[in-house]
């Protein structure tokens, strides 16, 4: 079946601009996660959605980062006023439930110039 998809695959933006990254999870998966992968920092948790519960935003690095999940399916990660340190690969994962195996998408490579 279809896996997790993300778009765009690559995004180059100028410092100060806003960007939106999209994630389509595996159909039927109730949990959705965003992670960030950068050199030197490895893979870091950003935010987590589970069903209709309030999201766990504990990993968001600043208030410039936000995410929403519409209809329990598609999710959008928004970064406002991008900075060069935001350059990284942003990975989305979905899971059939909490503390269950997570399946990752291919990621969006963000470059802030």
């Amino acid at each position, binding site marked *: 079946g279809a896996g*997790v998809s993300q778009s765009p695959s690559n995004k180059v933006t100028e410092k100060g601009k806003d960007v939106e990254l999209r994630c389509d999870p595996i159909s039927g998966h109730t*949990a959705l*996660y965003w*992670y960030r992968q950068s050199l030197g920092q*490895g*893979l*870091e*948790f950003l935010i*987590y959605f*589970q069903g209709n519960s309030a999201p*766990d935003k*504990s*990993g968001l690095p600043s208030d410039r980062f936000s995410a929403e999940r519409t209809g329990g399916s598609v999710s959008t990660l928004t970064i406002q006023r991008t900075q060069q340190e935001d350059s990284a690969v942003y*990975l989305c*994962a979905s*899971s059939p439930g*909490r*503390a269950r*195996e*997570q*399946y*990752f*998408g*291919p*990621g969006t*490579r963000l470059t802030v110039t």
Partner: protein
Amino acid sequence: QKEVEQDPGPLSVPEGAIVSLNCTYSNSAFQYFMWYRQYSRKGPELLMYTYSSGNKEDGRFTAQVDKSSKYISLFIRDSQPSDSATYLCATTLNAGGTSYGKLTFGQGTILTVHP
């Protein structure tokens, strides 16, 4: 100190060798353990998912968990050049713990299997 420690390598082995990849963790509340394989410029691919201490085998891959020493391992038998990738260990809390579900990753070990 990171919650999950993993030797970044790089590790280079000849084709056919047995590969041992290891991680240690510090939080005894971690209960679920996963190994991911990540090829260059791709997303992580789930290889193994375990809950309890002991061994779990899937083809050429064996995952081992020792909760008493907070040590997890992945063994690859008869390694192939196509196994060349970065291997990431990951763990998460048991159900009922705060923020359970989010994965905490090791730094990843870069493996090269040469023909």
